[in-house]
């Protein structure tokens, strides 16, 4: 044939092109995947390379449990000290064993993960080579058989065998692919050219934060499918369910969140609120007391202040005869918060006012006196705190020497913008305020 050599050259050129593309792609991908440059990048990368010791299937970078946070912090310190990745790796493996390392070593049983795929690939290659050799050696014979006046049964048999073998190889290849895909783990956004790109849990949590309750519930559930112990998802799904009336499921989630990470401040507030609503004021007080020992973000303090949750729980405890527990709860709040800066003074005044009111409500002269002293302090700290003014006015009614002060407090209360309706009603019913 005339075109034979030319076609052979074209074939070689195409194979060469394929080879160049494959090798080039590998080189580019390797070069593009450069080592992280900043310390933060290195910490992030290292945290992703190690397993959380107490979690199922989560890396140190993904987990929110205290030990994972602590190890991340240690990695950060070591990186900042100039330690190499190898030194960090050695330290972690020394402390927690080889199983913490997602990159297995070549020693012992762990080495099998490197050896087995190579052996499997070699076996597969050998099998395919043998099969191909068999087909190519069998093909001419079947052609000859056909040409020799056979009835065609031999050719048909070989073809069906070959097809069967091809189907078998395809099935094995597909199964192997599925197996590899399942054991290779999910790829996260920005980490893959192909494959199942999932939203990060952080993205899902952010989406849930602005979603409608039903959608938020689904988003938190998706986070929990990825990270079953994600305390933020558990806590906020519980709170979302509480607010939509699913109380039983809400309390289960909140309990799970506390069990997962008792130091997560938000869940302590959520559960305290839920427990208080359920009549478990002692349990609610425990949660707030634990919260006082945590390094809670400012928003949690704001939430507590605006909801007056601590005061309401203390009031409920006192009404059940647990005055000491009520005072301890208020004291815990007063002791824990750092009352530096004008912005925190209203909250402090509110706690002092509640404390003074509870003491004065005992009608025990000594405690009433201490209560009044507390109310005085509350008014000094928060001159426009409606509770401090109203409580002091009511308690002062029974102390003749404080008549002028009662009038002044009522007057100050009367000019407040939008005072609490219950306080206004109380003052009117006592004749201190005109209706």
């Amino acid at each position, binding site marked *: 044939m005339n075109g034979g050599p030319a076609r052979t050259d074209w074939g070689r050129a195409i194979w060469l092109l394929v080879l160049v593309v494959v090798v080039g792609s590998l080189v580019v991908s390797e070069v593009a995947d450069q080592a992280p440059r900043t310390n933060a990048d290195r910490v992030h990368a290292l945290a992703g390379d190690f397993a959380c*010791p*107490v979690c199922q299937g989560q890396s140190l970078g993904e987990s929110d449990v*205290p*030990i994972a*946070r*602590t*190890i991340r*912090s*240690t990695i950060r*310190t070591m990186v900042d000290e100039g330690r190499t990745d190898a030194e960090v790796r050695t330290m972690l493996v020394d*402390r*927690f*064993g080889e*199983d*913490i390392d997602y990159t297995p070593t070549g020693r012992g*049983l762990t080495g*099998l993960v490197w050896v087995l795929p190579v052996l499997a690939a070699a*076996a597969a290659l050998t099998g395919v080579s043998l099969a191909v050799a068999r087909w190519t050696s069998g093909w001419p014979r079947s052609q000859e058989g056909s040409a020799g006046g056979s009835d065609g049964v031999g050719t048909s048999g070989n073809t069906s065998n070959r097809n069967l073998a091809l189907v078998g190889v395809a099935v094995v290849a597909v199964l192997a692919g599925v197996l590899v895909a399942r054991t290779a783990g999910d790829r996260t956004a920005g980490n893959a050219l192909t494959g199942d790109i999932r939203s990060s849990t952080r993205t899902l949590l952010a989406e849930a934060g602005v979603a409608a309750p039903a959608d938020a519930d689904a988003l938190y559930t998706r986070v929990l499918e990825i990270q079953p112990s994600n305390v933020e998802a558990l806590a906020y799904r519980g709170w979302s369910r509480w607010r939509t009336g699913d109380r039983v499921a809400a309390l289960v989630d909140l309990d799970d969140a506390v069990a997962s990470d*008792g*130091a997560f401040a938000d869940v302590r507030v959520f559960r305290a609120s839920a427990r208080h609503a359920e009549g478990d004021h002692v349990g609610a007080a425990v949660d707030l007391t*634990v919260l*006082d*020992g*945590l*390094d809670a973000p400012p928003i949690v303090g704001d939430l507590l202040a605006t909801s007056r949750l601590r005061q309401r729980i203390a009031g409920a405890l006192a009404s059940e005869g647990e005055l000491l527990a009520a005072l301890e709860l208020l004291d*815990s709040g007063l*002791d*824990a918060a750092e009352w530096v800066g004008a912005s925190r003074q209203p909250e402090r005044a509110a706690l002092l006012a509640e404390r003074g009111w509870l003491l004065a409500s005992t009608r025990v002269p000594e405690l009433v006196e201490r209560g009044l002293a507390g109310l005085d302090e509350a008014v000094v700290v928060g001159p426009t705190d409606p509770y401090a003014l109203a409580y002091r006015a009511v308690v002062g009614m029974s102390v003749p020497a404080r008549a002028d002060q009662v009038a002044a407090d009522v007057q100050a209360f009367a000019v407040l913008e939008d005072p609490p309706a219950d306080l206004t009603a109380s003052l009117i019913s006592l004749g201190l305020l005109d209706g």
Partner: protein
Amino acid sequence: MNPVRRAALVVGLVLAVLVMVFATREAVRDRMTTHLVGAVAPPVAGITLDGTVWDIDDQRGRWVLVNFFSTTCVPCIEEHPELVAFAEVHDGSDPAVPEVRVVSVAFDDRSSAISRFFGEHGGGWPVLPADTGRIAVDWGVVAVPESYLVTPSGHVAAKVVGGVVRDDLEGLLDRGLAAVAGDRTGS
């Protein structure tokens, strides 16, 4: 035998052996928590709740019980009376009873909460309240409470994962004392 069948049999046997080996391996978490015993105790040093410096290296020649805890962990609250009882018996006042210095290392906690915890539950031993993350990692602490008995030579004699029970601690101490005595006799 057909070569293909022979190969399949070999592969099957290898797989069976691998399944057996992996199935009988101890759990990952167990392996993560059983190291360190017999090794030199990692550093424990810091400022205690009462403001003094405490360093395990200064305790050489004495038994030390290093307890990792958190005020928010229920097993830690449950084990505390056992620790108090153990510490009282081994406070060194009775020459017939070996002295054991107890030190508590707070994990992911706050000083105010720790002070309250010890005020409510008792215990007069040194407590390291802050900057203890690195200590916990050095000791390979996975989840509190965890306790370690350290020999006078500074080696970890025993590790207790979960809440301690005083009788168990006494047993560990007895075994440790016997081992130390055996070493001395041997040498």
